[in-house]
Structure formats: C-alpha cells, structure tokens
C-alpha cells in the first residue's frame, strides 16, 4: 500500500484546500505497478524534498527540469524509490506545481484552462549524485538511472550512441574506483566523475545551481556533500547521521578527522535564519532533518569522542582497552547500538584505527 506522506506534501502546498488534503489522506492515489511502500516524502524547501526509508535519506530536486537525486538508496528499494518519485510528481502536478505552461490571460481572455486540462506526464530522473561508495548510496544506481534519461544532441548523440540511455550518475572518481573494486555492474557505475575539490552541475537545475563538494577521507575516500544554492539546502550524505555515529569505512579510506573536516566545511557554508535555527537546512544521510545547530552538536560530539580516543592512544592503550574505557559514553543511548550493521564498538574501532594510521603517516 502506498505510504507516501501525503500530509507532508500538503504541508508544502499552502494553496491546497484543507478538505482536499483530508480527502487525499483518506484515499491515497493508487496506481499500477510497484508502490512506494514504506517510503515517505518530507518537504525541505522550494524544490528540495527528502525521501525517507530507502536505506539512506535521498535528497531530491523535483521540478520542471526533471528530477535530480542525491544518493540512490539500497538496491532492494529501487522500484519503490522510482514509484515514490512518480507519486510525488503526480501530486505536485495535480496542483499545477510542475506545469510550465501558464493559463491564457491575454487581452479580454481571462478563462482558465484548468477545468479541462490534463497534466503533463512526470519528468524523468536526469541526475543521480553519489556522496560515497557505500552500498546505501550507490545500491540503487543501476535501476534508477535506467529509469531516467540524459538529454543529448549534436555530435554527442551521433558518436556515442548510448549517451542518452539513462540518467547521468555523478560522483568523485574514488567512488568509481571503489565500485569497480567491488565488481559492481556496469550500469551502476558513475558516468560523470571528478577528481577536483568541487564539481558544479553545468547549468541551473530546477532554477538553482547545484554544487558538489568533495571531502577527502571521511566515510570513505570518495565522499562529497551537495549544496543546492538557491534553496539553501545541503545534502550531507554519510558525514552527518541523526540516528547513529557516522559510518567510517577505514578500508575504503575513511577517517574520523575527514568526517570532522566535512562537518566543519558544512558549518562554514551554513547560515542560520534566526537564533541558530533554520536557515540553511541539512539533510542527513540517516535520521531526521537538521540545520546548522544540529550539525554543530554532531561536530561537537565527534570532536569530543575523537579527543578522548586520541588521549587514550597517547597513553598507549590497545584497541580493546580503549573500547573498555567507553569513550562514547554520554552519547550511546542516543546514537549507539549494540547490534545491527554499525555498532558502537565498530565506530570506536574505526576512530581508533584511523587515528593510529594518521599518527603513522
């Protein structure tokens, strides 16, 4: 059954009539094919939405230019993500929010075309930006990219026959390298890579610039965060998780100091609206929506834990001894876990190992 968060959608559409919203809550739109399942949309600002439940939070720019996603979720959720995007577009279309055509209002002509208009079909997914090589970021690349399109023409279309097949997948080149190491399918690999500190989507997308900022050696060695410059929204990827300690894959080049550098870079960009609240909104890799104050807290916590682990290393303690001293105590009930794919001990080990490796180099 569709569990698209219609109330969230309604909150973003102030023009919508309350009765209409209530009716939609009671009778969610049902369509053929895969449903959105337990995925939920939450409006962030302007064209930017947060999709919750796909293995990671997916940030989406949805508008007249089509759809740009930051991360693709896990592979098993791809069909639901595609369905959720179509549902969102259908509902935005129903209120005319994606319709680029304007009603005729020339001269004495004041009639609206809306009573007889049918709305345009949903626009395609055109870009996926992977913020790391972790499976919950890139797992859905293949299926979601295949459902999209890249607009090409001229020489490109003539010489590279498949250049318009599927959406473009953008990532730092280390993401591509890690995915190749893992023998991921060709269709899942990034189609546009960069090796510089920043990458910009070449033109405005849905009325704003989109900037990708590389953060070296954070969760992995290919991490980035994405800044939607008009909406003033940052998709932080795995640098910032509101429901766990950050995942740090040391084998793939991750480090605690890299995560902290990324968080401090986000704080440099972010400007609060009032009293350190709101303003630049930050979509975390996991957990609830945040802002600069939340990123500040997360940065503070990780710095304090880093300092404690470093002090214990300086005392000459082994990893087992460091774990026994519980440097995460104070934050475990909120962010820790004793089970699942990312436990508190795994986090402490990652911090310890990355600090030890830093001290060697």
């Amino acid at each position: 059954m569709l569990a698209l968060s219609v109330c969230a959608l309604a909150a973003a559409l102030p023009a919508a009539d309350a009765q209409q919203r209530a009716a939609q809550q009671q009778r969610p739109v049902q369509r053929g094919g895969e449903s959105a399942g337990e995925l939920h949309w939450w409006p962030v600002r302007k064209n930017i939405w947060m999709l919750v439940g796909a293995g990671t939070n997916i940030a989406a720019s949805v508008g007249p230019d089509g759809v740009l996603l930051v991360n693709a979720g896990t592979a098993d959720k791809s069909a639901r993500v595609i369905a959720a995007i179509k549902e969102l577009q259908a509902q935005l279309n129903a209120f005319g929010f994606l319709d680029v055509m304007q009603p005729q209002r020339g001269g004495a002509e004041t009639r609206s075309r809306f009573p007889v208009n049918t709305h345009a079909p949903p626009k395609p997914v055109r870009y996926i930006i992977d913020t790391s090589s972790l499976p919950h970021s890139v797992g859905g690349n293949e299926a979601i990219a295949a459902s999209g399109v890249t607009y090409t023409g001229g020489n490109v279309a003539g010489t590279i026959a498949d250049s318009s097949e599927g959406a473009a997948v953008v990532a730092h080149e280390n993401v591509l390298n890690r995915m190749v190491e893992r023998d991921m399918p060709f269709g899942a690999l990034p189609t546009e890579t960069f090796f510089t500190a920043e990458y910009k989507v070449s033109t405005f997308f849905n009325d704003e610039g989109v900037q990708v900022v590389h953060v070296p050696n954070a969760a992995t060695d290919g991490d980035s965060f994405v800044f939607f410059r008009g909406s003033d929204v940052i998709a932080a990827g795995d640098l910032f998780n509101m429901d766990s300690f950050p995942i740090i894959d040391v084998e793939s080049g991750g480090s605690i100091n890299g995560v902290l550098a990324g968080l401090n870079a986000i704080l440099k960009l972010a400007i609060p609206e009032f009293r350190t609240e709101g303003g630049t909104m930050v979509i975390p890799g996991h957990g609830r929506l945040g802002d600069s104050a939340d990123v500040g807290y997360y940065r503070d916590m990780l710095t304090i834990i880093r300092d404690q682990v470093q002090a214990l290393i300086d005392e000459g303690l082994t990893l087992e001894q460091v774990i026994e001293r519980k440097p995460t105590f104070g934050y475990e009930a909120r962010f820790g876990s004793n089970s699942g794919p990312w436990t508190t001990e795994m986090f402490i080990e990652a911090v310890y190992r990355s600090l030890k490796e830093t001290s060697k180099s």
Partner: protein
Amino acid sequence: MGFGAAATMNSITIARSRQTRALRGHVMRKVRRLRLAVASFAAVIGGGAATAQMDFSGEWPVVRSQDNQDNPHLGEYVGIPLSREAIRRAEIWDASIQSLPEWQCRPHSAAYIKRGPSNLRVWKEVDPASRQIIAFQTEWLRSTNTPIYMDGRPHPPEYAAHTWGGFSTGTWEGDRLRVETTHMKEDYYRRNGVPQSDTARLTEYLIRRRFQNEDYLTWVIVAYDDVYLTEPLIRSTEYRLNLAQLVPPYPCTIVTEVVRPEGYVPNWLPGKNDQIYSFSDFYGLPRELYFDGAETMYPEYRNKLERVGATAARRAPGRE
C-alpha cells in the same frame, strides 16, 4: 603551628561548618520546592474537568521568588534525575563551548526557558472565519516564538526538523491547558552542562488564577527523556500579569570571540575536570554526592545528607 596558622585553620573549620549547614539548607530548600512543585502538580492533574476555557494572553513577568535567579554552581545536579550518561556529559562539559560561533546566539529551549528569569508574552491567533483560537503564541525574552496549536493538527513525523521551542499542541482540561511538546533540539535542563536530549518530550499545564487581586499563571513542566533522565522531571514557574511589561528585541551577532585552531571544541577529558567539584567544595561536602541522580529529588535524601554532612564535618581541617 603558629597562632596565625591556628586561627586560619579555625576559620576554615568554621567556614566549612557553615558551608555544610548552608548546603543542607540549600538542598532542603530544593527538596521543599520540589515537594511544592509535586503538590501543585498533583493539584493540577487531580482537579475535576470543567467545560470552561481560559485566556492566557498578556504580559507575564516571572515571579522571581523561586530558584530561578542565581546561576547554578558547576557540578550542582541535585534535584534532577540524571542518568549516568547525562552525568558523564555534564562532567566533560566545558563552559567555554558557549564561545563557539555555533553556540553564541542560541536561545534556551522549551525544556529550560520557563525556568529562567525571562519575561513571557502570550497572544492569541484567531481563525478569521470561525473566530476559534488557532494557537496561543508564546514568546520569552532572548528566545524564539513558540505557538501552542489549538486546532487539532497532528505532531510532525519523527523525521521532521527539530526547533528550540519544539512543536506544541494544546487541549483543554477544564480551564487549564494541557500542552504536549515534541521535536525539541538538544539543550539543557540546567545551565551547567546538564544535557537534555532531542528525543525528550514535555507535558505542560498552564493554570491561570487570581490571588490577592493579582493574576498569576502557573506553568508546570514535566520532562520525559529516555536518554538523559531516569524519571520524569517536574518543575513549575510562577508568572504575574503586568500589562506595562514589554518584551524588547534581543538581536545577536556571531563573532570570533577566541582565536582557536579550526574545529576546536572545548571539552574536558573524563576524570580531569576539577571544576565540577565547585558545588560540593563550596559547601564542604564529599565530591561523590552529585552522582546520586534521581535520589536527590526525594525527601529521604535528607537522611543521607545528614550522614554525609556529619562525615564532612569530621573531615574538615582542624578536627583531625
């Protein structure tokens, strides 16, 4: 030992003894206040339901006769049912963190602002058609506006953003207003590093009453926090209506207060913070007292204090 030294030791002994008595008095006052708060809370929730509603609009200076006018000591955690993790957080907290840019313009959050000395303003937002109250808007000096929605809207889902004021909805229980608040940011229960988690929620009661020709607003706050509290924390504050009051603007500018390395966050390593003994040392008491958490909320705690106080007196310099 010379005369001067003996006199000094005697002074210390007397001072220590006074401090011990002062602590007993200090904690007993807190216990009495807590009992008053519990009693008023019980009176609040125990009253029968009525159909009347109440208007809370107006300018409300806080009645500064409770424990809301002095800064707390570092390490003063009595009266708060802190978890062990909360005590660790408080122990490693360094007050100079407040000088970081991300901390400079923060207001107090919903769980604390009513306990501070900030003046309150309340006004009604009314539906233009039905004339029903949509929300009571509340504003404290140095804080953010927080609406208490009265129109039956649901609380946001768990993945929505949190704010300092949280998200509040109100329902009438007779002429008192019951308020449920969720979606707060992380903050503190006391301004000495005692943490409040962002998963905490509040149940609050607003009671307006008239006493000796003056209008009073009693604001009861019950905090539930699975992360940092082992039991609910119940506190209350009194406001007195004064229509001549103004809540002035309180702008804030973020500046670089201290030149530090990028990314530096002030904090104490566990076991290294001597400042948290400020409270126990000031009153001449053993330092382990403040680890007692919820125990410090109850009247029986005075028995333990008596025992500990006697020990402290025996340990005082000049008696050995």
